[in-house]
Every structure is written in C-alpha cells, then in structure tokens.
C-alpha cells in the first residue's frame, strides 16, 4: 500500500505528463510561435534589418494534409526547403494549383502550376530564392501559415499585408481570368 505523499507525487507526475502531451499536440498540430529570420519577407516581416530584432509570429499549423485546401493566394507560409529537409523558408503563396503565372524577369513566359503545387515568392525579390528560381513546389511542403506577429510588442497583432497588386496582375486564376 503506497503512502499518501507517494500517491500525491504520482498524481503530479502523471498530471504533468498529460499536460505535456496535450501541449505538444497543440504546438505540433494546431498553433505555435515561430521566429522569422532573414529578410526575404520584408517589409511584412522583419521590417528592421537589424539582426537583433527578429519577428516572432503566431502560426496556424492546420494547413497540412487535406487541410491544405485552406491555403489562399497571399498567405504567408513556412515551408520546408525543397533542397534541404532541415531548412525552413518563409514565403508568400502567389499562385495555387492550376493557376498560370508569369515568372519574375521572364515576361514572355507563362508557367502552369501543377496539381497539388503552389507558386511561392518572397516579398523582397532581390533577397529571396523562391519559385522564380526553382519552380512550383508541392503544397505538402507547407508546414504552417502565419497569422499575426506577436513580437516585437510594437507590432503585436498587426495585420499582415496581402498580395501586392503588381503580383496579382501576374496571376491567371485557373489559367483564365487575371487575379487583378
């Protein structure tokens, strides 16, 4: 027969393990905070080039598997780099499956985004390696969608900008109608 303090400790340990597993599920599969490094998404994220000021954003992780249908053009997403599974990119979705897009720097070309893929671009085209260099990427690489910055405090809850008009003008929805 266990003594009273022993039972109390056992309850505490089991309770902590239960809370940790629920917390891990939420952080892995529903929502979490992520730090954004690099300048490819300026000025929407990391508007200050100073390396000490990095944005922390609240991300929505319910965009994987069948939920990839929730992704929209203009969403800022984090995705695994197609060339390195351990590296994470932060880009903006410009075109969705079956859209056609005019790549940057090749005004005469028209690329069709294949089924299950998307076209991603950084807002700062000069400091970004994106679909303009490696082509459309599978939507399955997308791991989360940025909702709002939470750090620095001055930008807490700020609205993330959407797709600029000049980018919309390059997208043909389903290959027919121009987005803007």
């Amino acid at each position, binding site marked *: 027969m266990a003594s009273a303090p022993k039972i109390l400790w056992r309850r505490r340990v089991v309770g902590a*393990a*239960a*809370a940790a*597993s*629920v917390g*891990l*599920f939420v952080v*892995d*599969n529903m929502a979490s905070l992520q730090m954004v490094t690099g300048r490819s998404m300026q000025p929407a994220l990391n508007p200050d080039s100073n390396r000490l000021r990095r944005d922390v954003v609240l991300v929505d992780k319910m965009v*994987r*598997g*069948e939920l*990839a249908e929730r992704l929209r053009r203009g969403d800022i997403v984090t995705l*695994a*780099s*197609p*060339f*390195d*599974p351990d590296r994470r990119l932060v880009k903006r979705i410009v075109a969705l499956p079956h859209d056609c897009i005019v790549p940057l720097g090749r005004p005469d070309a028209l690329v069709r985004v*294949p*089924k*299950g*893929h998307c076209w991603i671009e950084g807002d700062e085209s000069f400091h970004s390696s994106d679909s303009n260099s490696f082509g459309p*990427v*599978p*939507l*399955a*690489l*997308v791991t989360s969608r940025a909702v709002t910055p939470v750090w620095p405090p001055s930008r807490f809850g700020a609205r993330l900008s959407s797709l600029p008009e000049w980018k919309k003008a390059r997208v043909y929805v389903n290959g027919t109608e121009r987005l803007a």
Partner: protein
Amino acid sequence: MSRQRLFAGAGRFAWSTAKIGVRVVLPTACLLHAVFDYAGEISPSMGPSMLPTLNLAGDTVLVERLPGWRRRVQVGDLVVFISPANPARRAIKRVLGGPGDTLCVDPTKDKLAFVQVPRGHVWLQGDNYSNSTDSRTHGPIPQALLRGRVLACVWPSPRLLPNNVEIVPGQFVGHASD
C-alpha cells in the same frame, strides 16, 4: 422520479463524462499521437504499385520515425511519402537514388532519358513498374516529403522488409519477392 431530479442526474453524468474525457481520453490520444510522430506507427497500405513486395488488397506496415531517421534512409529502402500531386495522399515506394545519383528514368522506353537527382531530393519508384505513379511522373521528390522508413509488414503475413537491393554498375537489380 421528479423531472428536476432527472435533469440533475443527467447533468452530473454529462459533467463526469466530460471530466474523464479531458483528464484521461484527451491526454492518452495526444500521447499516442506523439509516439506516432516521434517513434513510428503501424499503418495500412493499399494499391498495386508495390506488388509483389506488398499486397494489392492491403498490408499493414511498421513505419519507423525515430530521431535521425532521415539520415538512415538508403537506396533500396521502402519509404512512406506524401504525394507531391496531392498533399492528402500518402504512398509507399522504394528509394532508387539519392542526391547526386544519375539514373535512367524508364529503361523500358525506346529513347532512354537520364536524370541527376538534385540536392535534397530522392528518386522513388514502385516495385511494380507497369502500374505505379512515382518519380517517373512526379520527377525527383523533395526529402522533406518523406514521412518514415518502412521496416516490416505486420499483417496479414508478418515479415521484415529488408533492403535487398543490389546495384550492379549500369543497372539496378531488385529481389523484391524474397
């Protein structure tokens, strides 16, 4: 029994059920999910693409996902991956080439095409070449789409699924039905 007491009883029952759900069922489900994500899982597989290694009607396989599994994936291993054409679909295929390898896209074609697998990608093909949608249509698959290494078949006929592939210079020889 009066109507009031009946309602009170139903309320207490709902409350205790909810308490058990939050205290027992929810953490257990989350713990199981974490084990699936960080250790491995047992999952059903279906389809003709891996015949004769895996059954047409469905085999249940053991998928390993312990830390560092990505580095342990070798040419010849069976892997679970997310289809690049449909993020909701998973499939099992065999790794036929890693980053930097050059291989023939389809040896059965008259005009042979060769590709070099880019950095961070793998070349996947089903064992049933005549009925498999794989890297021959998708192209090289980013390693980030891999979701685990298949170690064994647990049901209906339990057996290990070892990497029994030989690479002879100039060609690939698989002994899938051992």
